[in-house]
């Protein structure tokens, strides 16, 4: 999709190259995160893709076409661009801001207007904001408009330069999740620059960890970078707790749930006792009429006791949704009574139980499992090991 070949940038009046002989292949429909310490040249690298910064030497291919020498203004209209400061035009309405590129491309009024509505819906901004001005929006809303504006003419490629950098942590987290959901639908090829490894792990289908002068230290999936860092630099950059960080990459829906006896709050004591005897577990989960988890009861609690089921045992509180990541699931589990977490679907209905052992087992078997999951059809012909490791090795040989 995007191929950078021997890209070098030497700024005038500087002896050292900012980016030195970088080659990188970016696959269609993936989010590739360029991450590295400040001053490593990651932003310069990204800005050479749409030639905001003209490379000193090397070539850039977009969809197989050499765009190193084409008209840069026309090139940029094919590439969405989101920067940290967002850069909305303060004297234009939200609608006019979004319409910037469609108008340059000479779209009809009707088409542009429809597109604006569609995009506002996509990024979750009310249509009544069309004729407002940027200063009337909150930081998070401006960011969404920035993304909408970048996608206005439906470019196949988006460049994002620390797009969530200037936003408070809570909003940032929400915007990241929203953006990942959006990407599920739009499947753009995205080059994303950040200095935050955690953001890189969260956002990236693939991460390029860059050293000084944009030299690639490792170019790989987040899982592989965390399990198999290429060198000490990568290890240092990931920081502490790579195994824990890995857990945030898998969802609880990816692992198998344990077999657990369930009964209903409306069942009789005998029925519940019977259920308990039929399994090796010492606890039964009771569901209410809406299939929602109600209480945990143990054998001894109902053995000789006629307390109504609604009041015996303990309330079931360690509940996670199916799309929760393992990191958060484990966190819930640790604080729970029985070291297990109940999984529910979107409607809050019971879907299964996971416990410590299942998660541990899943972690141990995760590696081969993930490889399958992350191989997209587009790159199916290339063995996955090649793409990351060889490019990285190649980068170092030169």
């Amino acid at each position, binding site marked *: 999709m995007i191929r950078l070949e021997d890209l070098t940038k030497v700024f005038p009046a500087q002896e050292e190259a900012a980016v030195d002989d970088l080659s990188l292949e970016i696959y269609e429909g993936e989010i590739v995160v360029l991450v590295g310490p400040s001053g490593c040249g990651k932003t310069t690298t990204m800005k050479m893709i*749409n030639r*905001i910064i003209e490379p000193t030497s090397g070539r850039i291919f977009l969809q197989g076409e050499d765009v190193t020498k084409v008209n840069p*203004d*026309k*090139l*940029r*209209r*094919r590439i969405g*661009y989101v*920067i*940290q*400061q*967002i*850069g*909305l*035009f*303060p*004297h*234009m*309405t939200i609608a006019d801001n979004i319409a*910037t*590129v469609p108008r*340059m491309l000479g779209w009809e009024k009707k088409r542009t207007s429809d597109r604006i509505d569609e995009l506002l819906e996509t990024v979750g901004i009310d249509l009544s904001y069309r004729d407002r*001005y*940027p*200063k009337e929006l909150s930081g998070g809303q401006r960011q969404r408009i920035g993304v909408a*504006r*970048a996608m206005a003419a439906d470019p196949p490629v988006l*460049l994002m330069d620390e797009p969530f950098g200037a936003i408070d942590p809570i909003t940032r987290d929400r915007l990241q999740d929203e953006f990942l959901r959006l990407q599920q639908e739009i499947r753009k090829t995205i080059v994303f620059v950040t200095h935050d490894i955690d953001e890189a792990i969260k956002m990236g289908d693939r991460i390029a960890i860059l050293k000084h002068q944009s030299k690639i230290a490792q170019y790989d999936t987040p899982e592989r970078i965390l399990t198999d860092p290429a060198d000490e630099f990568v290890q240092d950059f990931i920081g502490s707790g790579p195994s824990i960080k890995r857990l945030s990459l898998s969802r609880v829906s990816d692992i198998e749930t344990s077999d657990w006896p369930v009964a209903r709050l409306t069942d009789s004591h005998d029925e519940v006792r019977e259920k308990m005897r039929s399994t090796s577990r010492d606890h039964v989960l009771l569901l209410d009429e809406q299939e929602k988890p109600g209480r945990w009861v143990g054998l001894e609690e109902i053995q000789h006791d006629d307390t109504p089921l609604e009041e015996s045992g303990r309330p079931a509180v360690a509940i996670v949704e199916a799309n929760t990541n393992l990191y958060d699931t484990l966190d819930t589990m640790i604080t729970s009574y029985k070291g297990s977490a109940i999984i529910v679907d979107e409607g809050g209905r019971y879907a299964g139980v996971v416990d410590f052992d299942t998660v541990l087992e899943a972690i141990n078997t995760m590696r081969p499992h993930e490889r399958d999951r992350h191989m997209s059809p587009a790159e199916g012909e290339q063995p996955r090991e090649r793409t990351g490791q060889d490019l990285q090795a190649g980068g170092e040989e030169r």
Partner: protein
Amino acid sequence: MTTLQKAAAKGPGGAARLLRYFTMPIFLGLAGLALYLYVGTQDLDSIEQRSLNAGTLIQQTARLLELAAVSTAIVVTLAVTTGVLLTRPFARRVSPFVIGLANIGQAVPSIGVLALLAIIWSIGFWPCIVALVAYSFLSILRNTMVGLRQVDRSIIEAARGMGMTKLAVLFRIELPLAVPIILAGIRTALIINVGTATLGTFIGAGGLGESINNAIRLDRTVVLVAASGVTAIVALFVDWLAGVAEDVLRPRGL
């Protein structure tokens, strides 16, 4: 006036803004009336009558406005263009030099510039215009440059990054965002020009300065009060107009 009312009504505190818009003209009207009544109570001799009649006053006021309007139109065109050129990257080297030159234009006393032009060129309307342009050039040039430079770099980068040409960025982003500051400069220049244009009489450019000058030389207080009063009213009215223009032309959303 309808646009004005609409703009005023839309903005915050519509009533307060309307009041602000109309206080000045009412005040100026009253001042004019007071001046007229004062002159009416005086017994005018023939010299005074020659200055203080409707025909002469209107003709001199018109001349004053003409001098101010023409010089401002010229200086706006020249100074804004120069300002735009000097803020382009290629002009980085020459810009201090040009600003220095403009500084000289303003530093030399206006009467000196007029005299100098009369000596090296000629007298009349156009030398006066040239003097006024030289004198007010700096305020517009400086404001244009400041206005363009204060535009947030990230906005320009976003615009360039979306594929706007440099020219489109200038006309659709930079200039509109600089408008408030440029307009402030133009307003200053306009006021300078109305004031300085009264000196135009010394090189035969006419205007209300003629009556003022005559009144001083012939010791005619009534004429002096009347002509200076009208000049002041004209200057304040022009300033008010410029203020209204600033409000109306400022891009919304800023």
